[in-house]
C-alpha cells in the first residue's frame, strides 16, 4: 500500500521505502531520513530572490543576505524534482523534518483503505460556525459536523 506524505514524497508500506511521487523511483528506507537519498544544492538565495533595488547603490534590496541566509534545495536524484527547500543559517545542520512511526502509519493507512493519489475534497473558505462537532443533539455527527 502506498501513502502520500508530501506533494513529492510517498511511502510504500509494502517494502517500507520512501519514493518520489513524480517519477516513482524508490529512495531510501521509510524508517530513515528521506533527505539522505536526495541531492542537496546550496543555492545562493539571491538567485531566487534577486535584488529589485540597485545593489550597487544600496545594501537592502529585497534580496536576502547570504551571510544570514542559506537556501538548501533538495532534489530527487532520479528526476530532478525540487522536493523541499530549507531556509537556514550557513553551516547549520539541516533539519530532519519528517520522522514518522511507520507501524502507526501502517495501522492507520490500513483503516483508510486505498487513498494514494485519490482526489481530496478540500473545503474552500469553510464558514466559521460555533457548533462543536461533537454536538449530536441537533442531528449532526462527526462526519458532517463541519459542512455547513
Amino acid at each position, binding site marked *: 500500500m502506498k501513502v502520500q506524505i508530501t506533494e513529492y514524497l510517498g511511502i510504500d508500506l509494502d517494502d517500507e521505502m520512501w519514493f518520489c511521487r513524480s517519477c516513482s523511483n524508490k529512495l531510501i528506507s521509510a524508517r530513515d531520513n528521506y533527505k539522505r*537519498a536526495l541531492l542537496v544544492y546550496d543555492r545562493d538565495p539571491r538567485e531566487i530572490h534577486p535584488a529589485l533595488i540597485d545593489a550597487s547603490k544600496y545594501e537592502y534590496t529585497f534580496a536576502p543576505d547570504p551571510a544570514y541566509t542559506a537556501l538548501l534545495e533538495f532534489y530527487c536524484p532520479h528526476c530532478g524534482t525540487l522536493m523541499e527547500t530549507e*531556509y537556514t543559517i550557513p553551516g547549520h*545542520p539541516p533539519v530532519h523534518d519528517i520522522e514518522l512511526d511507520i507501524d502507526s502509519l501502517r495501522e492507520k493507512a490500513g483503516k483508510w483503505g486505498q*487513498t494514494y493519489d485519490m482526489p481530496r475534497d478540500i473545503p474552500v473558505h469553510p464558514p*466559521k460556525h*460555533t457548533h462543536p462537532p461533537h454536538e449530536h443533539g441537533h442531528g449532526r455527527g462527526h462526519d458532517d459536523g463541519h459542512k455547513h
Partner: protein
Amino acid sequence: MNDMSEGLGANLSAADQALIDQFLIENQLFYAPDDEIMRDHRIAPRSTAEDEVLSRSDLDSNKIALVRDRLGSALQESFNMVEQMGVAPGARWGDLVSAIFTERGDLSQVGPYGIVPFASVCQYPVKFIRKYWMNDKSVGVREGDGFIHNDSRYGNIHNTDQSMLMPLFYKGELVCWLGSTIHEGENGAIEPGGMPSIAESKFDEGLKMCPFKVVERYELKRDLVNFLQNSVRDPKLQLADMKVKLHAVIRLQERVLAIIEEFGKEYLIATLRKTLEDTAAEVRRRIAELPDGTCRINTFIDGDLREHVLCKYPLKVTIKGDKMIWDLRGASPELTNRSINSALASQKSCMLSNLVLYVWPDLPSNQAVLDPVEILTHRNTLIDSSVDAPNAMSLIPIFRSLSVPNIVLAKFAYCLPKRYTAIVASHYNQPATFVYGGMTQHLEVTGNFCADINGNGGGARENSDGEHSLSPVFGYLADTGEYEIGEEELPYVRVVAQQFAKDRCGWGKYRGGMGYEQIMTVRGSDNFGFMTGQCGGKHNSALGLFGGYACPAYPLGKIKNINIFDTLKNDPEKVKFSMVDLMNEQAIPGATYVMQDAGMNFEQCHEGEVYMICQGAGGGYGDVLDRDPALVVKDVQDGLVSLEFAERIYKTILDPRTLAVDADATSRARAAEKAARKSRGVPYDKFVAKWVTKEPPADLPYFGSWDNDEELIASPPGGTRVRIKASECKGVMISNPKDRKIATLQAEIADLKKRLR
C-alpha cells in the same frame, strides 16, 4: 533555621496556622504575575455547578445548540457595536473581539468575527481577578463591576491591547464573565503608537495595567480613567474606547441575561462548559487521526528592531495517539533589553490561533482547542521570557507561532484521506505597517498604527495560489480600512496606496499571495513621524512548503530632504509611483535616498518626505517547474511577474508580444533545469559532511541552539559569544547600537590621530 522552622510549625495549633495563612494572604507585598495561572493553558476542572448540570439525564442537546447560537448572535452584536463606535483605528478595521468565559475564567466562545488570540489570552486576567480580587475586601467582584488590563505578563498579546472584563451575576450568583478587547494603539510608551521597538525595559512600554477595577455600578470610575488619560498621548481615545467597550459588554450582558431568563441558568452553564469539553474531545480525535511520529522545522528571526541578530525559533511536533507535544526548546535566549521577547501565554494564544486559522478552521474558536497540546519551552528564552524583559514587540516571535505550526502539521496531515481545509504554506508573518505619532493638522497629539498589517499575503495552498493582501496573520475578516478617513484626521498622505509590485512572490507550483506596496508622506504638520516594526530584511520570514520558496526579504525605502508635493507641482515627471523606480533612478534633485532594514525606530517625517514599505507575500507551494504555464501567463498579464522572472524562475518561455506560451521551448527549458539540478546537487551525506559546521560563523550575531537543544549560543553584537545551558538560561543583554557606533568612530579618530602624529 530548618530545625527552628520545623519546631515552630510543629508547635502551632491548627487555629494559629490558619491565622498565619490568613495574615500572609491579606498582607502579600505585591500581586505579581502568577505562574500557577500564567503557565496553565488548559481548561479548568469542572466546577460543582458544571458537573451537576452536565450530569443531568434530561439535558436537552437541542436547547444547548440554541443557547450557543444565541450567544453567537449576542457576541456578534457586541463586536459590531465596538467596530461601529470604536475610536481606535484597530477597532474600525476589526482588530477586536467580544468573548464569553465560564465562571472559572475559561474562554468558551467568541463571535463569528474577531481576533481569537485577543480573547484566548483573557482567560489569564479573569483567573487573576478571581484568585486575588474576588475575596479582597478592598476590591471584590460585584454586579456592575468592570476590570481593565493590558499587561501581557498577566495575559495579553502585547500591552497596546486593552480589555474590559465584566462578571455576570444572576440573582446574586456569579455565572460567567464577559469581555471586549481592542487593539487600542497608543499607551504612553517611549515611542508613540503602543509598540515601542526601542523599549529596553518594561518601564519603557507605557501603561502597565495588571487587572484592576475601573467600573462600578456600570459606571467608569472617572478618577481612574483620568489617571489613564494622563498617562497616554491620546486621552480622547483612552476615554472613548473605554466607554465603547463598557457599553458593548453591558449590551452583551443584557443578551446573556435574556438567554438565562428563557433557557435557565443551568443551560448557560452547561453550554459554556460543553462547548469547551466537546472541542477538546474533537481536537483529541483529530490528533489521533494523524500518524504518530515527529516533524520538525527551524526558523530564524533576523533582527531585534535595533540591530541585526539571528534568533532561532524551532518547532518539533510529536504525536502519539491522541497526544501532541509542541517542543520549542532550543529557541533563542531572551534578549533582556530588547523589545521582541514574549510571554509564554501570548505564544500559546497564537499557537491556538494557528490551529483555528490554518489547520482546523471549522473548529469553534475557544480555549479548549489548545487544551490537548503540551507545550515545552526553556524559560527565559525569546518565546518564554521573564517578567522583567520588555515584550512590546512580541509580535516578532508570536507571528512565528501564528505561521509555522501549520507547515509542520502539514507533514502529518497530507496523507489523510480527509481535509478540514487545504494544506497551506506560511502566511506573511511580519507586522508590516506604519506606526505613527505626533501632532495632527487639527492640533491634537496622537499615536497609533495603520491598518496595513491586515493586508498581508496568504500562503500558497495545495490546490491554488495564495490570496493577495488577504488578512493579518492573526485573524480573518479584518480590513485595511478607508485611508481617506485617516487622511482627514491625520497628517499622513499616501502617495501610492495598495499597489502590487512585480516579482515579489513566494514562488512555487502555486505562488503565495502578494502584499502591496505603499508610499507614505506627511502634510499639514511639522511634528509627525513614523516607525515600522518588521524583520525579514536579511533572512526570508514566510516559508514555503513542499519545495515552494519563501517570500523575498523586505526592506524600507525613504527619501529625505525633499518635499514630494513641491516636486509633484513643479517637476512631476521626476516622481515615479514605484519604490523601485524612485530609488533606482534617484531623479529628485537634492534628495537623500536610503534603503534600510524595515525595523525602523520612530523618526520625524518632515512634510513631503517619503517612506515606502511593502506588505509581504505568503510562502509558495511545490516545485516551480510544476507551475502551469497558463498561470505564469496570468501572473504576467496581471503585472505580478515580469517576463524575465517567468523565464528565470518558472522556466516558462513566452512570446514577449503576445504572451503566448512556447510549449516546446518551455518543456526544453524545464528539462534542462532538472538535468542541471541533478548535475549540481550533492548527495546528502557528502554535503552534510562538508557543509555543516560545529557552530555559527564567527561574525554572525547568532542566538539559540545549534546542534544540541540543551545548549544555547548567545553572540551579542559587540560582545563575546557564550554557550549557555538551556535549562539555566537567564537572558542576554545587548549593548546600545549607538554606543557601539560611537566606539567604532572613536577608534577611527584615535587611529587617524595616531597616523597624523
